[in-house]
């Protein structure tokens, strides 16, 4: 397999898909957060790869922003996890359905 930009992007796509599977299948919020991290990371890889394809620094800068965002996301997300654990005594995502719409009668 030649070392093309596509190859790198395919790797990123595979990682992204794996992260997505994680988000979709797991029950525990921690696992979901982890999977989100994988997806963000995969997106970052795609950025970097695209930047390197043109030999420009912009891709790396985008990766930096993704990184910052991931950090903020993880910190808020984990705070929410703690809070959820306190209130629901569980980290089961299926128990948290406060946004469910009440079907009118």
């Amino acid at each position, binding site marked *: 397999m030649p*070392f*093309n*930009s*596509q*190859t*790198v992007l*395919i*790797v990123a*796509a*595979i*990682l992204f*898909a*794996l*992260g*997505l*599977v994680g988000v*979709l*299948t*797991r*029950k*525990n919020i*921690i696992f979901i*957060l*982890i*999977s989100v*991290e*994988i997806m963000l*990371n995969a997106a970052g*890889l795609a950025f*970097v790869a695209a*930047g*390197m*394809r043109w*030999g420009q*620094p*912009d*891709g*790396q*800068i985008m990766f*930096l*922003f993704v*990184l*910052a*965002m*991931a*950090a*903020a*996301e*993880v*910190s*808020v997300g*984990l*705070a*929410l996890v*703690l*809070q959820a654990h*306190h*209130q629901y005594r569980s*980290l*089961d995502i299926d128990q948290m359905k406060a946004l469910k719409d009440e079907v009118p009668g």
Partner: protein
Amino acid sequence: MPVLFYIASVVAIISTLMVITRYQPIHALLYLVVSFLAMAMIFLSLGAPFVAILEIILYAGAIIVLLIFVVMMLNLGKDTALQERQWLQPKTWVGPSILCLVLLTELVILLFRSPEVPMQVKPVPMRAVSIALYKEYVIAVELAGFLLMAGIVGAAHISKHRKKHLHRFLQEEAKGPQRRAEKLTMIREKESTEAVLPAEKKPVKKT
């Protein structure tokens, strides 16, 4: 370099696969570290050493540590693993996996439509990255700063409250002062009547 890249990619993919299939949170996190390290290798092989180092420091270092802290704090151990084991039956994961597979296939097909361009690995120096960062993207950097700040404050705020609080919109409507006063007197009356009753019927706890 391609060889390095391929090896790292395979490691990354396998370890990621392990992440999403583990039942124990701590195992998953350890595989995630491997995955991140492999990713750092990929970055290196692409000629982006700065990013590779950041990947290791921030992702594999800071974020993973945060996650591990939380896992330890909440004592997520066997119970969680059991729950996940019971949950992760084929019927729950086959459907989403197929969807994701379709997505992946489509992405791959789309990727192969564009002309194949061989990758010339030519490292972009850190200097260029820094100049671009503080020149063209300076506003974005500021915004990222805001974001992190907000993240920190938000995290601090959210994790501070211990009691279950409803949003004010969700609270009972029209709780005027008069009504509250009525309620208070009602409660008092109730207590006074209960005072006459035998002791074991008294409310156990008063907050």
